[in-house]
């Protein structure tokens, strides 16, 4: 019985929030995996992109929120452009990130950490992007 | 408050039973109304349907006559544009009654009392929804007094 998974109650409220922030409908997904197949960042993802949608379909938001995947996504829109079901997975990833960093004190990137992460050649664009993506 | 207004408001509060005359084309909307029936979708009994072969059979005179006889709202329903059983009839309906609606508004009729909508044979729920909405709007407006022939008692 150890492997048997009891599907936890779907976190309806949080899930609804994610769907509203992203404006996407996870029900459209048929799990073809085209997003994963083309994802250039999949090597450092613990949950693959198509699994992210599957978990959201099942209401298992925690697994997604606690994953490395959402922080590995570079918002490159490769999946967005190819999805046969017109789902913008980049928006879903962003919505999950936002539900985390929008809560108080949960910014992933703190201003104090920045000096350690940059080098003299790094363009402003990287720092501004980082702040927009990881900090609220 | 003027006497007339008082009268109206008293009539409004008393049990105002609006009447809506719906002209439905035989192929789509009449069948849609039947489907609302077979699906037991409720809508108020104040809606009464007259069957026409195509929405383009509806003469603007019919609409005026209904208002003259005291109908509080008139709905014309046809097949969706592009789906007309007679190929193009509902395009004529659309044009004719766009003009008609402007005219009715010009002579002072509340535009909410008259509408043209497209209901296919498969849209029983749309039929009920359109009728419920039409009634709700007419309910808000109260009885049709502007175009009603006072000699005609309903």
């Amino acid at each position: 019985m150890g492997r048997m998974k009891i599907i936890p109650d779907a976190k309806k409220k949080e899930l609804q929030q994610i769907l509203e922030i992203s404006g996407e409908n996870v029900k459209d997904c048929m799990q073809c995996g085209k997003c994963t197949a083309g994802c250039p960042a999949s090597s450092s993802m613990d949950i693959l992109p198509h699994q992210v949608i599957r978990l959201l379909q099942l209401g298992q938001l925690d697994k997604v929120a606690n994953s490395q995947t959402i922080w590995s996504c570079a918002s490159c829109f490769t999946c967005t452009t190819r999805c046969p079901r017109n789902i913008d997975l980049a928006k879903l990833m962003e919505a999950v990130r936002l539900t985390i960093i929008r809560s108080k004190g949960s910014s992933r990137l703190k201003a104090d950490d920045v000096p350690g992460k940059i080098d003299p050649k790094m363009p402003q664009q990287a720092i501004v992007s980082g702040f927009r993506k990881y900090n609220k | 408050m003027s006497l007339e207004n008082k009268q109206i408001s008293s009539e409004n509060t008393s049990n105002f039973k609006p009447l809506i005359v719906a002209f439905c084309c035989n192929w789509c909307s009449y069948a849609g109304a039947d489907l609302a029936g077979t699906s037991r979708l409720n809508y108020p009994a104040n809606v009464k349907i007259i069957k026409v072969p195509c929405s383009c059979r509806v003469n603007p005179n019919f609409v005026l006559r209904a208002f003259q006889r005291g109908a509080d709202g008139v709905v014309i329903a046809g097949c969706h544009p592009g789906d007309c059983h007679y190929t193009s009839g509902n395009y004529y309906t659309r044009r004719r009654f766009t003009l008609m609606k402007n005219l009715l508004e010009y002579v002072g009729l509340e535009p909410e009392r008259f509408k043209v909508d497209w209901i296919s044979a498969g849209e029983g729920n749309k039929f009920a929804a359109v009728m419920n909405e039409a009634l709700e709007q007419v309910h808000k407006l109260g009885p049709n007094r502007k175009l009603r022939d006072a000699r005609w008692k309903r």
Partner: protein
Amino acid sequence: MKFSYYPGCTLKTKAQELEKFALNSAAALGVELEEQKEWQCCGAVYPLAEDEIGTKLSSVRALAEAAQKNEKLITLCAACHHVIKRVNEDMKTKDDVKNKVNNYLQLAQDYQGEAEVIHYLEMLRDEIGFDKLAEKVTNPLTNRKIGAYYGCLLLRPAETMNFDDPENPSIIEEFIKALGATPVKYPYRTECCGGYLSLDNKELAQEMTDNIMKSALKNEVEELVTACPLCKYNLENKNGKIAISYFTELLAEALGVKE
């Protein structure tokens, strides 16, 4: 030919060459780029959340100014182009965004997506024409095998950016050809370099750029060009074998206005 011009913050600091060569070349081509007076940073990433308004305002200000002047808005940095173009699309198609933004900004006239945003490369292709550009080349870059690195932001999402075929683009190759050099198509030219991941997940960004560089090397690319400061940074970071420059540098060189 006169355009409004939005530079963006990186072009004033770490990516000054991108701008300098672009402006020199524009002058040589008889194109007037008028820098917007009070442009603000676009935010570098397009806000993907449907409920974010504040982060779109700076783009709308730039767009509204261009619309008011009745000029097309030219961008140079791929990130700025991406952000401003997508915000413009929102202003055209999303009533909710449009209303909230206009309520907030209280511009003299509501902005509804009237301005047209084009990237400098699109200006070269669509306004001047690559054949005309080729005629103006004084110093053709003959015998140079140059690869284009497109990255993500100019191409995707395809329907909004409407820049080129998102999977098999050709605009930069045609540009390279117009300058007299030999464009080399290599398969990974549209793959992501990792972008902002280089801030927080350097290893992953490294791996992603490695894949691109390998693909370029395999196909005998001798130098790479790009339109994005962050792509250039990521590609340069580890590699020493292939020189990476901004496309504008090549342009200036071919037009004889470098320096």
